[in-house]
């Protein structure tokens, strides 16, 4: 019996891998994301130079074999700083998306399951949050807490909550209206267990696709906040504050802003494509089983 089961499961996962391999968005997105994640991991243990090591004799150096991306105004190695900056970007993306998911998904489920007044309260709060200028929220937060990566992550996470409320609620409503939820109620399942066992697994792929898409936006937003001086502050290397300092030396060394710009582009494109790929695969699967 176990042999049969294992074989069946193996065949299923192989078929799943094959579907992934044939989806261009998923493949390209996955590769780019893999590159960024790998860079961040490597930077934890190794960078060509310490990202904070100053070298006054080599400021604003052009790219060379010694410094592939050149050096900045303090003679710090730009490649090392771009590598170190990937950690900040990923960290900010993960935390802000998790904050938004952790608040938005339960709120969306509540709105879908309860309906009526609770739903109206959740939805109107979410509308208010959506309408509130996110930048103003970020400025307020950094005024209250001081500019830091944490401030930026919080501001972005809060701004994303309404997206998850809406996505979760609309998808949960469809699942709650399905016959299998009616059947689950008919065999005595309680509402909370229905949400956990029937609704969540069926909206999971949509939520995950949304997480991936918002992850790319979060990276972009975090870089923007750093650029404005509301997020990660120098000397810590982040892509956003690197662009900002690069701007000052634009006439002397235009490449200084380009490198972190390319890094942001790769990361954002990667997560966007990955999100689209997940959504496409999900639709294909639903289309097939329908």
């Amino acid at each position, binding site marked *: *019996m176990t042999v*049969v*089961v294992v074989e*069946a*499961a193996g065949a299923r996962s192989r078929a799943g891998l094959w579907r992934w391999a044939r989806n261009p968005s998923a493949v390209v997105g996955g590769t780019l994301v893999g590159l960024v994640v790998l860079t961040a991991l490597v930077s934890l243990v190794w960078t060509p130079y310490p990202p904070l090591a100053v070298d006054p004799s080599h400021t604003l150096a052009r790219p060379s074999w010694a410094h592939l991306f050149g050096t900045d105004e303090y003679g710090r190695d730009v490649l090392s700083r771009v590598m170190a900056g990937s950690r900040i970007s990923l960290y900010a993306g993960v935390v802000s998306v998790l904050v938004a998911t952790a608040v938005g998904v339960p709120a969306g489920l509540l709105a879908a399951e309860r*309906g009526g007044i609770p739903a109206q309260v959740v939805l109107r709060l979410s509308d208010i949050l959506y309408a509130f200028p996110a930048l103003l929220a970020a400025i307020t937060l950094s005024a209250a807490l001081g500019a830091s990566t944490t401030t930026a992550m919080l501001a972005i996470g809060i701004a994303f909550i309404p997206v998850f409320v809406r996505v979760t609620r609309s998808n949960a409503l469809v699942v709650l209206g*399905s*016959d*299998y939820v*009616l*059947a*689950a*109620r*008919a*065999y*005595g*399942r*309680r509402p909370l267990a229905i949400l956990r*066992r*029937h609704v969540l*697994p*069926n909206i*999971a792929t949509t939520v995950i696709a949304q997480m991936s898409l918002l992850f790319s936006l979060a990276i972009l937003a975090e870089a923007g906040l750093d650029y404005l001086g509301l997020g990660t502050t120098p000397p810590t290397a982040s892509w956003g504050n690197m662009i900002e300092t690069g701007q000052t030396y634009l006439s002397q060394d235009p490449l200084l802003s380009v490198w972190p710009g390319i890094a942001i582009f790769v990361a954002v494109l990667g997560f966007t494509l990955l999100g689209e790929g997940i959504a496409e695969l999900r639709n294909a699967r639903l289309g*097939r*089983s329908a």
Partner: protein
Amino acid sequence: MTLLSVRDLTVSAPGGLALVDGVSLDIEKGERVGLIGESGSGKSLTALAVMGLLGEELKATGHVFFGNEDLFAASERRRCQLRGDAISMIFQEPMMALNPTMRVGKQVGETLRIHRGLGRRAAARAAVDLLGRVELPDPQRCAMMYPHELSGGQRQRVMMAIAISCDPDVVLADEPTTALDVTVQRRVLELLDRLVAEEHCALLLITHDLAVVSEMCDRVVTMYGGRVVEVGPAARMLTSPAHPYTEALLETSLAVSVDAPSDGVLPAIAGSVPAAGAFPTGCPFRDRCPRRTEACEVTPPLAGDGTHAVACWWPIAQPVAGTSTR
């Protein structure tokens, strides 16, 4: 002993429109009752109201007694206890009634975990047993599959396994074979017949198929326009129906099953079921009825002897008096 007793059940839409209008019916212990009528007659709503699973926008009034307990007065907690345990339901669309992201065995075992407190492993073992009882080939393998890997007939068997898992006292089967291929309908019904017999449970079978009713059911209830128009023993109602609507249903189904005159025209009931709210006053069937008179403008009561009752001013086998508009 009356197991399930529905009294004056009315289900109304938000505007106060009655979709089910004063339905009463009884199911004795171990009895099999067929509920027939065209689509839109209120059959499924009646079953859902008994289960307490009407949507929030629909309002049910009246009483549903399970034994001596009024279910409409019971707490939601108590109703959850009964659902799937004492009263279970089989749905029309087996494709839609199974969770696509959950393995079949787990879904079958769920009921036992809820109502019998079985652990994960015990429930998994019991699920395999149940899948075997509903004659699925290689139940151990089936238990590990997802619903989309099964055929429609197999999925309906899974639904039946769920329905009987807690030894229910009554099963409500809402057109269990309508969505299936004709070729597998019979086998699924034979299985249902056997399971109900083995479990000694009562059955409310909602169907269009009178041939099935005649084979499987002890009694028949005909519904039209949200009302019960005729109740009686299956043998009597399917050979000499008293309500013109039951007779019309019978004619349409006989023509298909017997080699009726092959003039190429299938008999149909004149007209079509009106939309809810568009039924005529008085007898809901009177616009389509060949026996209508002015008397039919007044709603006929459901009247008869203890076993056979009909809601018609001019039941068949009784001459139509007065001026017929026919």
